[in-house]
């Protein structure tokens, strides 16, 4: 009866909703533009002139958001991102002393490995994804602290040579381009959305849902592993709390970008870009305004809630948890 109930409301308001949905999908972008303009006027163009500095902060978040975006598209969650970033960073640092390429590969593999752990417990043991990832988050954070107990894990000085716009931007754009292509123009994307919208039916339509789910977690780990390289290139070492709370940043970024938390058909690839940019712009803007920490955080929270309230897609959720 759930569906039929929904159906009644839906059908009556179908017309209106299609319009609302169109609007909603555009809202984040409008939001971004507005916020950007607002801050520029408030800071007398400061923000635009120092865009390079601002963008320098976006790469890591932007890259690692891609993986979580895939996970959330199929209705899962991942809170272990921060720890994945941490472990991968440590691996990158260690291997960077041997060879940079090896370091990159190592980071990616480390990330993928943790992703696989998540995937295993989630898919094979049927434990809720957020329970699994909260546990692994704690677990691997422990490892990180252990590794960095006596001193931060330093990378070889060579890595700084890679701290160039070209490389960071290159990697970011590459990741974005590839994932966009794959998500938008291959069956992969449609499968993910379908799983998010109705896993059982998707299974009955011949999609190997379990395999997909597992692989996505691995993929997300791998992507974050790559982001770890970009992170290390900039920071040169992994401390005990490297990547701390990355997961929250990602979550906030995606939600700001208009990502429906339950995933499904309504997700848009631009959620990633818009969200990450919005998040960074917001942070910098508030700092430029010269606010105190408390005030900044207060405003952040309020803006966040407002955005969510505006974008949240409530139709496709029969029950909101």
């Amino acid at each position: 009866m759930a569906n039929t109930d929904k159906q009644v409301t839906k059908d009556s308001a179908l017309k209106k909703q299609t319009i609302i949905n169109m609007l909603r999908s555009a809202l984040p972008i409008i939001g971004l533009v507005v916020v950007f303009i607002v801050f520029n006027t408030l800071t007398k163009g400061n923000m635009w002139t120092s865009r390079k500095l601002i963008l320098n902060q976006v790469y890591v978040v932007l890259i690692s958001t891609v993986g979580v975006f895939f996970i959330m598209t199929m209705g899962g969650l991942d809170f272990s991102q921060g720890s994945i970033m941490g472990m991968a960073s440590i691996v990158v640092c260690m291997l960077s002393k041997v060879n940079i390429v090896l370091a990159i590969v190592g980071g990616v593999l480390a990330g993928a490995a943790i992703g696989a752990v998540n995937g295993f417990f989630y898919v094979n043991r049927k434990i809720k994804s957020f329970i699994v990832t909260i546990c692994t988050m704690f677990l691997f954070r422990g490892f990180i602290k252990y590794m960095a107990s006596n001193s931060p894990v330093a990378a070889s000085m060579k890595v700084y040579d890679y701290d160039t716009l070209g490389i960071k931007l290159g990697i970011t754009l590459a990741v974005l381009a590839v994932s966009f292509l794959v998500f938008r123009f291959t069956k992969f994307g449609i499968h993910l959305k379908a799983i998010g919208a109705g896993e059982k039916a998707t299974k009955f339509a011949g999609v190997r849902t379990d395999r997909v789910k597992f692989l996505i977690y691995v993929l997300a780990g791998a992507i974050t592993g790559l982001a770890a390289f970009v992170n290390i290139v900039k920071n040169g070492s992994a401390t005990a709390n490297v990547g701390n709370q990355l997961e929250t940043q990602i979550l906030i970024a995606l939600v700001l970008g208009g990502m429906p938390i339950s995933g499904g058909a309504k997700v848009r690839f631009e959620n990633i870009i818009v969200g990450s940019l919005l998040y960074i712009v917001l942070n910098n803007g508030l700092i430029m305004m010269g606010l105190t920490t408390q005030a900044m955080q207060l405003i952040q929270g309020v803006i966040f809630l407002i955005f969510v309230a505006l974008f949240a897609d409530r139709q496709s959720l029969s029950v909101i948890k």
Partner: protein
Amino acid sequence: MKKTRETAGKKLSARTKGYLLLLLMVIVSWGIFKIITPDNFGSAKNMLSYFEASLLAAVGAVGFYFVMVMGMFDFSIGANIMLSAIVGCVFANRFGLGYLGLVVGAIITGALVGLLNGTLYVKLRIPSMIVTTGLALIYESVANYIAGGVEQTLPSGLRAFGQMPGNLILAVIAFAVAFLLLNYTKIGTYTYAIGSNEFVAKNMGISVNKYKVLAFIISGAFLGVMAVLTISYGSSMVAVTGMASMSRNFVPTMGCFFGLAFKKYGMPIPAIIIGEFVINIIFFGFIALGAPTAIQDVITGFALLIIVMLTTKVAKGEIVK
């Protein structure tokens, strides 16, 4: 009807089985460390202090359980504890209301935070996970404004709840209340009903939203009690910002996982209490071994994952998100 008689027979022992399982866990975790480091671990006196330490989180977890059972989540636990503790402390100190101010202040604050979480979640119809993330930001900064960047210290005269028997009394009262609510009021029944199937519950004339908000309020109040215990135990509380309060989320959440895992044995609250106890036994055990703290995190996270894994049975074709 032979089948049912069997099932009935099996279930008779369910509760006892649950207790046995928990007892086993205690004994095993105790035994292992007792064998390895007999001299400085696991004397009756030690065990008591381990248990005391576990009370804090247990109280919070017991309250949070109401929210978790309904399938919702709360990321503002840490922020709530922080805020409640500080308000309580301010009441007790600045306004010189003594114990009354401390306890009442903290609990009221906690409940209000819960109310805010619940109402926003229900009214905005946004997933609780998201709402609470946004609100956590706000609570942190509010707490900071109240504390004014100075640590709130509880004078030694007001620390009765930090040690035997005060903490035990308060905790036991809390547990009793939770037990009462869960087993001897409509609230408990409806909590499970909503957790089991919201639509059927609606049809039974349960005003789902009302009880969801109520669950958040209850959870909040219990976190308030936890705040009292926490600040009495540690004697001071600082209002951190930047989502740092999130680090307080994990331990109570762990307890809840225990509760959920043992729900089917019909004894969640004891499971939470003993679960937190076991976690602490392991923690102190490792210190007795002189193992670095980091490794303890690893073990705890891992142990938890295993326990959850063992207690969730893999139902074929079941959809888990």
